[in-house]
């Protein structure tokens, strides 16, 4: 799916050769500041590599329109950002951005169940806790049904119990729908349990690349 060749991004990241496989769950672990988020940002072209090339399905991503690429490869940033308005506004805004047809309330409520968000669609987002906001953001990303999910610490604001359930639900969804998932996590436990490919990044380099 993704092939990285001699990719360098400033002094942050240096990857000689890396493949991210289609239809697999790739989990990235590593110390904070090691370049994990930068790797995700490179994959959906929020930044360009200073050197080297990245290929998506065999095509150099420099030749793909960045907006079109991001509609197939959606990234969820670490800090859940809410747009002003209700939960429903936030769940639908992704469809507007990616110019996809809107879905009905039932579909939205179903997606909320996957992330265990027990709230009303009309609830204002500014009243939500950090963990709830994170789940709205996650739900918003999942609803877009892209080819690739790039999730940057999607459960960092959740307690361990909730984290386990939500991550399991996401993985089930991804596997069932044959999607590709690249997820950064702080939890070795999650990586070991769900990662079909575990990447460990240290000091901007891949120090472990294990297929399971």
């Amino acid at each position, binding site marked *: 799916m993704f092939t990285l060749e001699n990719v360098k991004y400033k002094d942050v990241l240096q990857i000689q050769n890396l493949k991210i496989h289609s239809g697999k769950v790739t989990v990235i672990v590593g110390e904070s500041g090691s370049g994990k988020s930068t790797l995700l940002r490179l994959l959906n072209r*929020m930044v360009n590599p200073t050197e080297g090339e990245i290929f998506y399905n065999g095509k150099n991503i420099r030749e793909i329109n960045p907006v*079109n690429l991001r*509609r197939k490869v*959606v990234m*969820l940033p670490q*800090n859940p950002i809410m747009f002003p308005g209700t939960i429903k506004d936030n769940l639908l805004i992704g469809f507007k951005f990616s110019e996809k047809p809107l879905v009905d309330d039932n579909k939205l409520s179903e997606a909320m169940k996957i992330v265990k968000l027990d709230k009303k669609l009309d609830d204002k987002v500014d009243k939500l806790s950090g963990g709830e906001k994170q789940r709205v953001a996650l739900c918003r*990303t999942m609803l877009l049904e892209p080819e690739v999910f790039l999730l940057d610490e999607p459960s960092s604001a959740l307690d361990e119990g909730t984290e386990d359930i939500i991550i399991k639900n996401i993985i089930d969804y991804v596997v069932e729908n044959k999607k590709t998932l690249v997820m950064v996590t702080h939890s070795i436990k999650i990586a070991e349990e769900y990662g079909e490919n575990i990447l460990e990044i240290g000091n901007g380099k891949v120090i472990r690349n294990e297929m399971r």
Partner: protein
Amino acid sequence: MEGVVDLNIYQMISAYIFVLILLVIVRLRGIPREKEIIISSFRMTIQLILAGYVLDYIFKSSSPILTLIIIMIMEVFAIYNTFKRVKYPLTKELKKIISVSMFSGTLVSLFYFLLVVIGMKPWYDPRYFIPISGMIVGNSMTGISLGTKNLIEGMNSKKDLVETALMMGATPKMASKDIVNNAFDASILPTINSMVGMGIVSLPGMMTGQILSGISPLIAVRYQIAIMLGIMGSVSLTVIIFLQLGYKTFFTKDSQLNI
């Protein structure tokens, strides 16, 4: 009373009593402002006397080239003043866009106003051209300064929102739509507010001037209504051109945020 009362030199001098009153007040209260009051009164007097002579010369010579030079000076002054008013560092690209928007927005509105609304002949009659372009350029300058300030502030404070939108496949235009709309709203608000109070809270300067020079208030209000609409048009046009071009400078050609 018919016509205009010409103020003679003694009458003019008697008006400076107001400066003296102010000086006495600040002196008695111990407010250290005497210097500024004297300098500003002096500057105002000299600047206006000079402006009077310059305008008198221009009106008498009534030359199209001279009129064009004047409007160019006004535009350049307004553009530099905009750069100065916005308290953020401006990129070269943004400065270029401010200049292009000011020139195109104000000149289109100005010529439409002079040629279509007033139907002025000759088109360069400085008696109309100069005061009207002054009002249009001045108000558009305020509008574009507010637009620039709000666009920069919006982009910086909502950087995360813009980036989140991009990550979901938004185009830069979609991602910055709310910021652009807010900046536009903030820029036209002063013009809209001034229209609301006009005639009740305040009598606008142009109308007051016309009335003082003996023109019927009924004609003066017609001009005032027309010029207010012209100002509103020019402010909106200038600001929308600026914003439509300006937001793009915050993104790279690869639709990445450039702040």
